[in-house]
């Protein structure tokens, strides 16, 4: 935001880009205290308005023959005032509180460095412009003879959103990219299909109290995009309707749900007790949960009065003997990905690149040699047995008797749109949309298990406003209609929640949540101290601690490959050399990592390339003894560790005893990276030293032998 401050003050922004592709010129009602203060001024048809300078009059913001004002105060038809969204943005970030000098101390980057970065970004964006001699036509049908690129690319991944201020930080980054006009331009940030999607996407979560009924399918998807209080899944009194409290006032825009709260909420019976917890793949009894010791206790805790488990039944599907398996009452042994069909669909996270739309499949390459079933087949059969309409014919028979491959080919979420976009239609030549092709999987296999459609050069950039792209994306079913997708600098939906918190509207937050919603639902990005950091004593917990997975440890699939564990058989805590020296810590020493929630003893490694106030480690390499069919003395168990043990799923109590999730207040994204710790030397390394805590070893599965100690794949005469 200090970079934005610098760019605005030097007028190093792409004004043409802003008026054509963003809501910068949309008028925002300025009527403090009114129920529509801060919302977009709209005409009778609900269309947002701009001020057209060439006619000195209001005009629909989408009109293409106008000269929109980006600053100024204008009078609406009802006599009230409105200002362009850009003005609100400029007023905020040009303020001194966003200057490099004001923020350098708290972000740890010198003011001179911030100024230099801003100057470099401006220089590259506006002096080193990339121009492609490619004609293209915009959404309004106007031809352009060039594609102009601002070649500034930024790399950010999940770390930012793993903080309790992550939503706003992500927004700030995107606002910066938009201001310099580098979204979907040559050299800039580029969309991978199926994006861009309309903003906001027209998909609401189902699950309001009246929508969840026994023996009845829900009327819509469980996840979606809320754009105002009316979309929340809350009871009459404003309390959460879902077990994870997603789409409640505690996390109104939680488009991913709050998986990290399910066990904790179910254990408390808040918002309701459950009889069965059904989980797949996520290793929630170990490295996918915050507060592992607490989580394990919750999974086995009993109600003193009845003697019944607080979470009575647990069903879990996994391909491996992971740490969660022993807590399950019913285990559904999954196949590995080598033994089943999968589709990497445009509906989830496909293999697309910016120049083309693509998806892919996996096919079984070995037959299972044990009593396992692909979990997708199990889910389809469950759906059939329950008589869910999506899985049964009118006669009540199975709609997909061939299991998952049958579903991949024959399921249509909308006419002509299925899990796979390639080789559709009776002749197998339709792309994106088309009739079911019974031979679709064969066509994929013939094409090395993937399909890709490459965009024409004229379709590759400005996808949000490129007529050829928008029409193609519509024809392929990626979007509903070829309308311009306007980038939202100012997010009206945020203001709707804020207005509710201020008392406007029919759907009101409980008083306890009012101030929080009002504070964090700012329609423009803000920065605030992450919650844990704000609550704990900074002198007692002076350092940040991060944990992230190496790629081999995503989910719990196949991570114990005999070769991979030779590469990363245990993890260390990485600490900066200079900090370690100050703390009297040497390479290989064992240290105690203490947070406000707990403590672990781990072995450390000194490193130059880590910030002095931060330590980090790999997640998921540390295993519980006995899990994964490894020997109890496997280094993953004896030397490896998890930081999860010292991360709480809830924030410390505040006020009336309510504990909010350790998560972003807007999206509910788990704040894994908010952890604050202190590091103390425990002991020098010596033979037999182990990480702590060590949990009781899991008993091996009686029916499964230990893996061979010596592997000789490819030896003459077999292993």
């Amino acid at each position, binding site marked *: 935001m200090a970079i934005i401050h610098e760019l605005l003050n030097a007028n190093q922004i792409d004004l043409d880009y802003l008026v054509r592709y963003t809501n910068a010129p949309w008028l925002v009602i300025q009527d403090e205290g009114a129920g529509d203060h801060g919302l977009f001024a709209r005409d009778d048809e609900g269309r947002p308005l701009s001020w057209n300078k060439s006619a000195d009059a209001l005009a629909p913001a989408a009109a293409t023959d106008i000269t929109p004002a980006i600053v100024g105060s204008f009078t609406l038809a009802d006599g009230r005032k409105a200002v362009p969204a850009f003005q609100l943005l400029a007023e905020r970030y040009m303020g001194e509180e966003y200057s490099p000098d004001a923020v350098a101390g708290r972000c740890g980057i010198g003011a001179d460095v911030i100024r230099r970065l801003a100057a470099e970004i401006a220089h590259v964006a506006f002096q080193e412009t990339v121009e492609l001699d490619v004609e293209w036509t915009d959404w*309004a049908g106007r031809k352009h003879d060039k594609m102009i690129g601002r070649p500034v690319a930024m790399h950010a991944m999940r770390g930012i959103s793993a903080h309790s201020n992550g939503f706003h930080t992500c927004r700030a980054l995107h606002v910066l990219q938009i201001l310099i006009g580098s979204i979907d331009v040559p050299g800039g940030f580029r969309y991978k299909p199926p994006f861009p999607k309309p903003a906001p996407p027209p998909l609401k979560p189902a699950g309001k109290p009246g929508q969840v009924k026994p023996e009845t399918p829900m009327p819509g998807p469980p996840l979606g995009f809320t754009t105002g209080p009316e979309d929340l899944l809350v009871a009459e009194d404003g309390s959460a309707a879902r077990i994870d409290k997603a789409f409640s006032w505690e996390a109104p825009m939680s488009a991913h749900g709050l998986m990290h709260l399910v066990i904790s909420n179910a254990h408390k019976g808040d918002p309701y007790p459950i009889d069965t917890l059904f989980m797949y793949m996520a290793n929630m009894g170990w490295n996918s949960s915050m507060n592992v010791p607490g989580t394990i206790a919750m999974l086995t805790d009993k109600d003193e009065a009845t003697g019944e488990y607080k979470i009575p039944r647990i069903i879990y599907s996994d391909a491996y003997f992971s740490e969660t398996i022993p807590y399950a009452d019913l285990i559904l042994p999954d196949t590995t990905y080598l033994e089943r069909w999968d589709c990497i669909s445009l509906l989830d996270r496909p293999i697309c690149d910016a120049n083309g739309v693509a998806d892919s499949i996996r096919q079984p390459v070995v037959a299972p040699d044990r009593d396992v079933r692909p979990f997708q087949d199990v889910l389809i059969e469950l759906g059939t047995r329950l008589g869910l309409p999506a899985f049964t014919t009118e006669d009540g028979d199975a709609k997909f008797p061939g299991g998952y491959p049958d579903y991949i080919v024959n399921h249509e979420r909308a006419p002509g749109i299925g899990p796979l976009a390639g080789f559709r239609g009776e002749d197998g030549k339709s792309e994106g949309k088309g009739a079911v092709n019974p031979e679709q999987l064969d066509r994929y296999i013939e094409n090395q298990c993937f399909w890709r459609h490459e965009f024409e050069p004229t379709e590759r950039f400005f996808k949000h406003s490129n007529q050829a792209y928008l029409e193609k994306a519509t024809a392929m079913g990626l979007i509903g209609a070829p309308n311009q997708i306007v980038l939202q600098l100012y997010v009206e939906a945020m203001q709707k929640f804020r207005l509710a918190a201020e008392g406007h509207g029919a759907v009101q937050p409980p008083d306890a949540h009012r101030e929080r919603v009002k504070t964090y639902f700012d329609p423009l990005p803000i920065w605030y101290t992450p919650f844990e950091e704000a609550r704990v004593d900074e002198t007692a917990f002076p350092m940040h601690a991060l944990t992230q997975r190496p790629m081999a440890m995503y989910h719990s699939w196949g991570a114990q490959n005999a070769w*991979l564990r030779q590469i990363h058989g245990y993890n260390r805590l990485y600490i900066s050399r200079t900090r370690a020296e100050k703390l009297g810590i040497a390479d290989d020493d064992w240290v105690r990592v203490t947070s406000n929630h707990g403590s672990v003893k781990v072995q450390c490694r000194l490193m130059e390339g880590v910030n002095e106030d931060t330590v980090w480690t790999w997640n998921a390499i540390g295993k519980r003894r006995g899990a994964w069919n490894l020997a*109890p003395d*496997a280094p993953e168990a004896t030397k490896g560790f998890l930081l999860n043990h010292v991360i709480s799923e809830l924030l410390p109590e505040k006020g009336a005893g309510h504990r909010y999730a350790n998560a972003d207040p807007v999206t509910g994204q788990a704040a894994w990276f908010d952890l604050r710790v202190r590091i103390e030397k425990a002991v020098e390394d010596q033979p037999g030293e182990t990480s702590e805590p060590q949990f009781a070893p899991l008993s091996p599965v009686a029916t499964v032998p230990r893996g061979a100690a010596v592997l000789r794949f490819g030896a003459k005469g077999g292993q």
Partner: protein
Amino acid sequence: MTSLPARPSAVKLGLVIDLDICVGCHACAVNCKEWNAGGHSAPMTDWNAYSGTESHEGEDAGAWGVGFNRVHTFEVGQGTESRTVHFPRSCLHCEEPECVRVCPTGASYKREEDGIVLVNADICIGCKLCSWACPYGAREYDHSDGVMKKCTLCVDRIYNENLEEIDRIPACVATCPAGARHFGDLGDPNSGVSVMVKERQGYDLMPEMGYGPTNKYLPPRARRDQGAENGAPVSLAALAAQAQSEAVPNGNGVGGALLRWVDSVLSR
């Protein structure tokens, strides 16, 4: 002891490894094992594969195994000037391979036609002299077979006419997601790899040993963290002053800094 070819081979097949862009992902190491566990040198034995110390074969506790390609990660420099280097290490197929000269049986040999250094397992007696002689640690002893194994430059891929031509490259090169590994004839000064070595000042590992490694490493590029190098100013102060001076007051009530945008004529 074993002789080298009488005439140095004209063709010198080898690898060029770009340390500037290697990200240390180990894909080369894993795909090397994948191919070679089914190829010329199979098996590539693993010990204590799923365990700590159950097997006492070998010398280490914990899981370990034969691997022809290992990636080491280290840091150079201190503090903000430091950088991480990921360094993949495998046989360099030297011009003057001491590992071959010391072989008492002729099992280790250098091919005349392309310079690849190989081991004939049938006559290897597992004496380990070659691993003592190799300063690069490229030799891998398979305790279970009692013979020495090593990188073959995927000799069973690069000439394999059962493979598509595009696949006739070493497994490590084929799989590298960063494009940090290149394969070619370093004996031909005009080959792609030779040109690359020339342009990027590719270097030999430990040239002072005199073994003349064929494989080359491309050094990390110099760090670029000063915008001045591409003409950017150190700050936007001058442009900010200019923008402020262009902000002329007019009558519509917008104050201060925002004035600069009042007269913008922007078309949708």
